[in-house]
């Protein structure tokens, strides 16, 4: 028997969405970011198909994980019933579009289909961000700026995965790719900064702070430095780019894990007025 409060009134860690739900955001975000990377590079690059397939697999794995969490697995199709207001429904539709376009792209080998799929993947990532924003019960999720953060980190993670694997396969990567990747890193750091500033009162800062620091230093500054290093010293470019990509990926995963599992406190209960008990 533990001694902690079970139901408040102080904020407590939500216990509804566990690692399975967090995995959807983690893998789904990375997958959509990877798909966007594919979309941006497919035209000039042969060999985009395995990356597209990997991206689809990551998104599917994320959705599969969250499917494991729902209480009525056989009713999963009900998730499509509320496109009117539910971002979870919209996320599911976006996923449907992603898979349809992605499958077509793989089957027909058309880069423009991959680009369309990338657009759908961007929408998918956007929906994930909106899912969190609508979660009024969790201050750290309903903070303005969370959508941009989720989208930005998806791009940075996917980009990081793309750059990392590509760097392992090719010796040098086209500078535009690195530029766009660097942009994604900077955008993510900016999104984090904006989100952090808007963090609602009551949302716990400590857990997020440390993962934010990891994001800024380990997931942005370090990769940027490594990319620059690689540009300046071509012999180390491949290794540097791999590490940069992985660092960007891991930092993003760390942030999302913390956001969804460690910092996911509800706001508890508060009394703007105290009752007046009898006469004065």
């Amino acid at each position: 028997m533990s001694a902690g409060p079970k139901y408040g009134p102080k904020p407590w860690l939500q216990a509804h969405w566990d690692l399975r739900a967090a995995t959807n955001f983690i893998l789904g975000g990375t997958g959509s970011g990877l798909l966007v990377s594919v979309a941006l590079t497919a035209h000039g690059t042969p060999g985009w198909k395995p990356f597209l397939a990997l991206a689809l697999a990551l998104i599917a794995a994320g959705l599969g994980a969250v499917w494991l969490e729902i209480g009525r697995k056989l009713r999963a199709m009900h998730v499509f019933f509320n496109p009117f207001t539910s971002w979870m429904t919209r996320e599911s539709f976006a996923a449907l579009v992603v898979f349809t376009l992605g499958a077509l792209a793989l089957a027909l080998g058309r880069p423009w289909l991959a680009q369309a799929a990338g657009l759908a993947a961007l929408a998918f990532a956007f929906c994930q961000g909106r899912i969190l924003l609508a979660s009024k019960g969790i201050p750290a999720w309903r903070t303005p700026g969370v959508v941009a953060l989720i989208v930005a980190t998806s791009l940075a993670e996917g980009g990081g995965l793309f750059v990392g694997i590509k760097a392992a396969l090719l010796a040098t990567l086209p500078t535009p790719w690195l530029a766009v990747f660097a942009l994604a890193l900077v955008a993510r750091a900016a999104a984090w900064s904006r989100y952090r500033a808007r963090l609602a009162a009551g949302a716990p800062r400590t857990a997020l702070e440390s993962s934010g620091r990891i994001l800024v230093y380990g997931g942005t500054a370090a990769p940027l430095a490594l990319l620059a290093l690689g540009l300046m010293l071509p012999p180390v470019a491949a290794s540097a780019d791999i590490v940069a990509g992985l660092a960007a990926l891991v930092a993003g995963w760390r942030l999302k894990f913390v956001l969804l599992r460690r910092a996911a406190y509800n706001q508890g209960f508060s009394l703007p007025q105290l009752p007046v008990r009898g006469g004065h």
Partner: protein
Amino acid sequence: MTRWAMIADLRRCVGCQTCTAACKHTNATPPEVQWRRVLDMEVGEYPEVQRAFVPVGCMHCAEPPCMHVCPSTATRQRADGIVTIDYDLCIGCAYCAVACPYQARYKTDHPEFAYGEPMPSEEQRFDARRFGVATKCTFCSDRVDAGLAQGLVPGVDPEATPACVNSCIAKALHFGDAEDPASNISQLLAENQYFRMHEELGTEPGFYYLWDKRR
């Protein structure tokens, strides 16, 4: 129009949890699921300390975040304001549970019983539909509806009134139609100062907390 609402008079509540227990009886909720419960809140620093007992549960909001986020439309809102869950539609994603600012929703994945094996009273009330899905306070809508059908007044006639309100030994809980200016609820709101929980989130809760007379 009608809007069913509840009042908790914080001046009267003593935190006894009779309503918590009565709700569990009437609704046969599994262990640890408390659709109605009472918080024990402390404010201040010794010796300037105050302690309040705060009944909470589903606020049956006019702008329910749970309903907006529900992907399956299992969560709906009746015309009379009561927010409902269709257990057969719900997929148990628990999105509503994280969307609710009042921690009012529960999801029990597997049947659980007080002492491991079910007692006859638990077997009698067992409802398989309620596992793996979201559940919450219903404002005892079945009692309200059955009572209305017999011409009874919810909040006045016990048979038409939520169990928690019926059970309160401090007369701290009240239930009635907030849109009827002559109702018990409306009168209490007119005579007293009140607030709603987390009002700044824009949920428009249907649950009011009285804290002082209007002076």
